């Protein structure tokens, strides 16, 4: 079984046509489906939030069979993820892609669970504390991408579950939970 770090690669990863964008519709649909699942799976296990198209991404090339995805193919697969709400382009030029292996709504739910589990219902935390603090260690929130976290927090703020305010330092913000 071929591995990428501690990630088990699927069987078809050694199938050379998997790395060429297929022009025939049915074949392409299946190929896109396989790539979508693989990208989400890989990002979830490896805690990868952003894929840069111009940067080296281990999943997009297979040294064993000497194949790698073209930029066109990379953009095509990521675009499908974007259209299904499982990713977002971070820039207009489609060079950086934010991968949402949990949707924003799901991240918000995870956040609420975290708050309830730790008894933070009426507490105040900074955004950085949530991302890197001792409390979040061992949970999915640990090391979460700031952009995604802010989006989840804004969603909850909109629902009245918390309030975001400017913190003392310019680069951090505070969160007042009121679950």
């Amino acid at each position: 079984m071929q591995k990428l770090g501690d990630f088990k690669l699927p069987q078809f990863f050694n199938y050379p046509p998997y790395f060429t964008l297929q022009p025939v519709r049915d074949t392409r649909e299946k190929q896109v489906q396989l790539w979508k699942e693989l990208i989400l799976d890989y990002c979830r296990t490896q805690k990868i939030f952003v894929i840069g198209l111009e940067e080296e991404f281990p999943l997009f090339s297979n040294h064993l069979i000497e194949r790698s995805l073209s930029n066109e193919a990379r953009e095509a697969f990521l675009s499908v993820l974007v259209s299904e709400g499982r990713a977002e382009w971070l820039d207009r030029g489609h060079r950086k892609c934010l991968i949402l292996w949990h949707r924003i709504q799901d991240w918000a739910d995870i956040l609420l669970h975290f708050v309830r589990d730790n008894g933070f219902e009426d507490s105040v935390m900074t955004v950085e504390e949530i991302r890197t603090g001792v409390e979040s260690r061992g949970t999915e929130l640990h090391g979460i991408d700031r952009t995604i976290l802010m989006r989840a927090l804004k969603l909850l703020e909109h629902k009245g579950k918390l309030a975001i305010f400017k913190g003392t330092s310019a680069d951090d913000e505070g969160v007042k939970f009121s679950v």
Partner: protein
Amino acid sequence: MSTATTSFFEPASVTSSGRPVLHQAEVECHLLSPVDLETEPTTTATTTINSLDFPALKSGLGILTTHRLLWLPSNATTDSSSPISIPLSSVTHIFSPKKSIKSMFHSPRIRFQVSMHSRSVVVTLVIRGKGDIDGFLTKFWDCWRGRAWEIGNDSGGGSSSGSVPVSGSVSGGGLYSSDGSVRLVGVSGILRKEQEMWESTDKSLQEAFHDLNALMRKAKEMVILAEKMRQKLLSGSSSQSSSGNDEEMGSKEEMQDWLLSVGIVSPVTKESAGAMYHQQLSRQLADFVRIPLEKAGGMINLIDIYCLFNRARGTELISPEDLLQACSLWEKFDVPVMLRKFDSGVKVIQNKSHSDEEVFARIKNLVSKPEALRSGITASDAAMTLGIAPAMAKEHLLSAESKGLLCRDISPDGFRFFINLFPEINSDDIHIELFSHFTQSAIKCQSNLDRPGFKVALRRDDRKRAIQKSLLGLFCNGWNFQPDSDTDPDPGLSSLTLFCVRWNDTDKASSSSAIHYTSTL
């Protein structure tokens, strides 16, 4: 009706595409359509002429050749009349056209007397459509007086004896030159200017035509010479077959092929066919392509046919435009060939009976071979297997791809095709599926490191599908497999031998790891 028609006139044979079958050295000179052929018995001839002997031959195609006058029904499928021919040798007199006021309102007619089977009739050719009647009449006279049938018979006998007779007394041998109706620019335009110069002096004009006639006769000699060479080669190869080496034989056969393929004796030309040029060209092409098409396996590139066809026509070349038009006219005729356009824009000629399924089956066979499973196939691989041109093979591969049979792999190595496994890939996890199938079966691995392969024993209740899926799982993980026989594993199969080759490495180390891999299952 048709039997009655043949009672006086000779029947004419036509090809499947409706072109007349010409005799040796017979050349078409003029075509007219539509024409009627009316017959009236002469008063001096036999008194009892059954009207059934001369049925009305209405609105057909009139073809004048150097040897015969042919009448073909315009639509062979619906018309009950069958094609007939009148040998020019049996024409005893051609009447001069009557100039009268009455004739101005009539369709133009050409009357001539024919005597065959000790009977004599006057035949009237009624030209219903617009056509070059004067031109036709001139040609008619030329051909009749040319007595080409006599020359043909003489030279046929002469080729075996070795002497080439040239009858010097013939005045009307020139077929394409005497009417001077050149309507082209370029080289032809220069020729026309030349001709205008000739016309200034009647005498030099006569001389010029004399030269052309001599040239025509020389051309005939050349044909006879070519025929003789072919005969010599044929006899030579049979006598030396024991001593001559294969290469020599090969080149001789090739030479024979060339000589054989040189001749379309009577190419359809704009001059002879006039308005029916494309229609007749189309029919002639349909007859011509049959042999090359057979050799090429039922499909041939349009460009190849263009070259072959023009080479066979010799000097009467056609333009690509004409060829395309001739091909596109096939839809309207009942011919066994058709023009096909691939998605990529490549145009080919193929038999109507040609089926893609057969080609696909062969391609599938090719890509299922162990080597092809591992590294795919290229267009030239397919070309070699299918025995066709690489460009054509690529078209087949692309259409097989669009059918979902193949998928592509573009890499620095080039453009390759693989068998399409995408529909078979179970995205959940093949590994688990493979695992369950193989553990349900009693697995016995027989290691044989000399031959990278191992035997898997499967219980009888294993379904064919399950076996295939298991094999596929192995394949997707980088192993190739080959069942015991070339056929699919059958449901009652008790064991399979798998030859395992890992993608990009085929050494013994990998085969030992192959065995290790399955035994962990």
